[in-house]
């Protein structure tokens, strides 16, 4: 009873993925005539999706990857040292600072979109890569600092003291002694940030806007698919190209990704 039911569920979970994959290699007629079959496979629609003037997928990958890397780098460089000071200092003001950052995990993104437009306009960063990357980074800070501070608290302070005795300053102690030990926490955050930046739709759509000509994978998919939602030779190959890198990444790193994304799900 249990096994057949589970396998039926597996089928139900995977059929959409199957439909997406096979139909990405068919022309419109074959898709309409036989959406679940394997007949008449061709590479042509995929080729056309790759050279779609509406949305350059390869450029979309590059832009999105640039955002993912910059947000991750900036997030670690900003959050890790701050978390270190918070975790190591017995001073009251740093405990208050922790609570101040923690409050940020409760603020829903929806409330921020509109006023952030105002802030970015005031700073002259609206519609720029810098503005977008900064905002996405800030969104990662509260949870990163919370996670890093919790992790640093488990690293023995004797290590810092030993480094200090050997003459290392605070910055050096952190980056050379403590930071390398934070690898698991940083890995969790990188996974979390990678998915949230890659899959984000609202923020790039509004902050970068169609005027900037900069499409991430999601805003590009929206531009390419939303108006042609019944031209399946556009829909299926574009969607397949959009999710392929993430799925490959997921298959190879599933254990870490599941635990990372689950940690992120509980942050609110």
């Amino acid at each position, binding site marked *: 009873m249990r096994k057949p039911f589970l396998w039926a569920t597996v089928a139900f979970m995977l059929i959409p993925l199957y439909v997406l994959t096979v139909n990405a290699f068919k022309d419109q007629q074959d898709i309409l005539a036989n959406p679940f079959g394997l007949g008449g496979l061709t590479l042509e629609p995929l080729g056309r999706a790759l050279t779609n003037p509406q949305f350059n997928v390869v450029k979309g990958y590059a832009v999105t990857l640039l955002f993912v890397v910059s947000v991750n780098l900036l997030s670690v460089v900003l959050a890790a040292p701050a978390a270190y000071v918070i975790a190591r200092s017995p001073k009251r003001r740093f405990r208050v600072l922790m609570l101040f950052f923690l409050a940020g995990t409760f603020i829903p993104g929806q409330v921020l979109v509109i006023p952030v437009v*105002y802030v970015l306009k005031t700073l002259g960063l609206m519609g720029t890569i810098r503005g977008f990357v900064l905002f996405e980074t800030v969104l990662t800070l509260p949870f990163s600092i919370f996670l890093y501070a919790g992790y640093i608290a488990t690293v023995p302070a004797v290590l810092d003291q030993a480094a200090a005795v050997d003459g290392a300053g605070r910055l050096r102690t952190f980056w050379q002694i403590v930071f390398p030990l934070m690898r698991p926490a940083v890995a969790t955050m990188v996974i979390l940030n990678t998915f949230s930046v890659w899959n984000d739709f609202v923020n790039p759509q509004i902050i970068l806007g169609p005027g900037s000509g900069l499409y991430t994978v999601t805003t590009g998919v929206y531009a390419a698919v939303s108006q042609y939602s019944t031209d399946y030779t556009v829909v299926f190959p574009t969607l397949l190209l959009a999710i392929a890198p993430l799925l490959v990444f997921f298959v190879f790193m599933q254990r870490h990704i599941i635990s990372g994304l689950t940690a992120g799900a509980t942050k609110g």
Partner: protein
Amino acid sequence: MTLTREAPLVTTPVVRRKPRTRDGWVTAIMVAPATVLYIVMLIVPVGLALYLSLTDWDGFSANPAFVGAANYVNLLDDPELRRAALVTLLVAAAGTAGLNLLGLGFALLVNGVSRANTFFRIVLFYPHVLSALVVGFLWSAILGTTGAVNNLVTTWGGEVLPFLSDPTWATITMIAVLVWAGFGVNVVLYLAGLQAVPHSLIEAARIDGATRLQVFRNVTLPALGPSVTVNIVLSLVTLLKTYDLVVSLTAGGPAGQTQTVAYLILWNSFHDARLGFGSAQSVLLMLVTAALAFVVTRLRRRGELAVHQ
């Protein structure tokens, strides 16, 4: 230990002051950038959202006019918002029920270490990796009027099923897709909760002759209490801000019948250039979300106490 005790003995006050001020600077350098950015782009915007909700900002003018509570008065008798609020509450309630029933059910089914269970967990979880936007477009290609399923139905001589073209069907489809895409996370969370249920309790109950169902109801479920609370609050908070999936699955249609509050906020703000009004709606959404999360936590806590008495 000896280190910290000896340190004050060897450092004279003069030597001590110098490193201290330098240390102060270094600490500031480590903390300030994150703090400043956080204030400018997260704390200030929250305050601004409150302020903008009292103005008629259109997204362009540098100094929007102050209109007092007009936006809030307007949104109270806005039929569109009333409908969207109803849809959102329905999606949140039915979705939370679906996510948690399936989440807990499948967690019980795939609990235990085996290769097959690992595979099942991965398959149940994978849609969460995809963006909601892609999930929506994919399901609309499968369930749309000319989509894969309807193609099959019409080839077999059936009528086109209005999965996305009838308001009631479309709402149900949306909830179903949200549950399909999200319950894997609940499975993983409930699995974590199940590891914390004391095995000795379950064994004791089994020895006393309890059936599987009795063990579940009287041992496992009460022990899962906190896990259930976390899962319910999480599902509620997530579903109340459903946006991406509406855009891609139904585009709010047919005839605006599946617009959620989040969808309306962004539509009013960026399509109709009424960012002041949109701000008022988003403030309202934030308050309702916080209130619901609070009420659920409170009710659940009372329930848990009742179990323990």
